[in-house]
């Protein structure tokens, strides 16, 4: 928008005393009184109708059938916002990292959906469904730990509005896909996250072993360098409450996407089911 000065309106108003509070009764029946009445009536009726249209329009939006826990028009706007931020997304933009000493000692837990069934940590395997079908593959924690260990201290932001700085360690999801090329239809590995294979799956689904908790991620966020398959907090193996033996960590998303106790990962074409999105939250939930 041009910020150059615009010419003054033709009839610039010089300083004067405000007419507020003066006796401004117009002569009854005069032409000017009739005009004032006519304009006043017309304007207030217009404002009233506009207000009514606004109320009815808003009620109409609210009464549309639900799409995943929120009226469909609101869901469409959330999704459009998600597409807009995906278009702006660059994998080179990193969430700020902090000194390890700034991390909290006691890491808050919030929610245990998907963690309430028995688990034998030694028998645990991460099951991965390759993109485009094919036999599911199983991975042990040792397989994940064999990948380069990445330590980062980032801010975990809960969708409720609080945040904590946490020291995490694990393997980059992108490094996992570089070694195990399961996310592209042609079976190509991700060598460079800035130039991933063209036939990469658009979405990733993560589910707990008991299938009680599940999240969906877009592929760009999944292969971001700060998205980890995490097995340590503050240098210690994950506790059960924090998602032992392996969980997702990504400062690109709210905490609701940081699925604990990974069971199955699948690479898919359609936006996967998401526990909180089904209850009316933004599916993208991205930062």
């Amino acid at each position, binding site marked *: 928008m041009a910020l150059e000065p615009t010419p*003054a*309106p033709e009839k610039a108003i010089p*300083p*004067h005393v*405000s007419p507020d509070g003066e006796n401004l009764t117009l002569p009854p029946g005069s032409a000017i009184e009739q005009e004032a009445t006519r304009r006043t009536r017309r304007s207030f009726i217009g*404002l009233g109708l506009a207000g009514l249209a606004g109320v009815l329009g808003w009620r109409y939006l609210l009464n549309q059938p639900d799409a995943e826990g929120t009226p469909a028009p609101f869901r469409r*706007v959330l999704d459009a916002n998600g597409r807009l931020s995906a278009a702006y997304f660059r994998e080179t*933009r990193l969430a*700020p990292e902090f000194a390890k000493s700034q991390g909290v000692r006691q890491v808050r837990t919030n929610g245990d959906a998907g963690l309430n069934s028995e688990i034998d940590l030694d028998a645990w395997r991460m099951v991965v469904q390759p993109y485009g079908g094919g036999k599911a593959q199983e991975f042990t924690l040792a397989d994940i730990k064999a990948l380069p260990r990445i330590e980062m201290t980032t801010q975990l932001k809960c969708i409720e509005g609080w945040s904590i700085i946490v020291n995490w360690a694990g393997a980059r999801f992108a490094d996992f896909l570089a070694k195990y090329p399961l996310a592209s239809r042609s079976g190509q590995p991700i060598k460079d996250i800035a130039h991933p294979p063209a036939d990469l799956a658009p979405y990733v689904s993560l589910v707990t072993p008991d299938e009680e908790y599940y999240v969906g991620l877009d592929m760009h966020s999944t292969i971001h360098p700060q998205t980890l398959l995490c097995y340590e907090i503050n240098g210690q193996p994950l506790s059960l409450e924090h998602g032992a033996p392996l969980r997702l960590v990504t400062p690109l998303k709210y905490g609701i996407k940081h699925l604990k106790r990974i069971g199955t990962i699948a690479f898919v074409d359609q936006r996967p089911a998401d526990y909180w999105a089904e209850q*009316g939250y933004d599916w993208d939930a991205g930062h």
Partner: protein
Amino acid sequence: MKKLVEKHPLAIRWFHWVNFPVLALMIWSGLWIYWANDIYRLGWGTTTLYKFFPQSFYDATHLDHKLAQGMAWHFLLMWVFFLNGLLYVGYTLVSGEWRYLLPNRHSFREAIEVTLHDLGLRKAAPLVQKYNGAQRIAYTAVILMGLGSLLTGLSIYKPTQFGWLTQGLGGYEAARVEHFVLTIGYVLFFIVHVAQVGRAGWNNFRSMVAGFEIEEVPAGAASPRLAQREPDTQA
């Protein structure tokens, strides 16, 4: 002789009345969001003067347990708030209305005079153009607050992709506080604004709906304002 004098252009009246319910719903849905982590208070150490918000406030307003709904409303209405604000600022620039709205070198002194007058401590009514100095400062400040809400809001909505903005505002936690403080600012603005509109009376209020104001015009003058003083003595 009394005349109808044009005061508020139609566009400004539309922007004003669209903004009112939209900002109200933004604040309301913002409270639904804030409830999920309602940690702010006025106080120091262990002394709390006021907690945002006391249980009685939640009991009266029923704004608990609506986080998802609050975010859905907030992230739809933000577009209306943004576009309406952008059109308003664009219109004031193009139409020249900004000349009446931006504070000038007299505004600060005028604002003090207005305040003293309104408190009954000063007899002479202040001179106004379209707005007096206090109004110029308040109306310009509230537009800057709107910009501040957009920027602090964006910085907590997308703190990684707009990390430069979030860091510039002092970090994620600070930006959330700033976003909240601005909201409290709107509420305070609203209280003063409504009180002043009430004081000014019907003629003034009607001008924000119908556009005109009735003024006493000396015979022969085109407008009361032009009659009182030569133009451009202060502009």
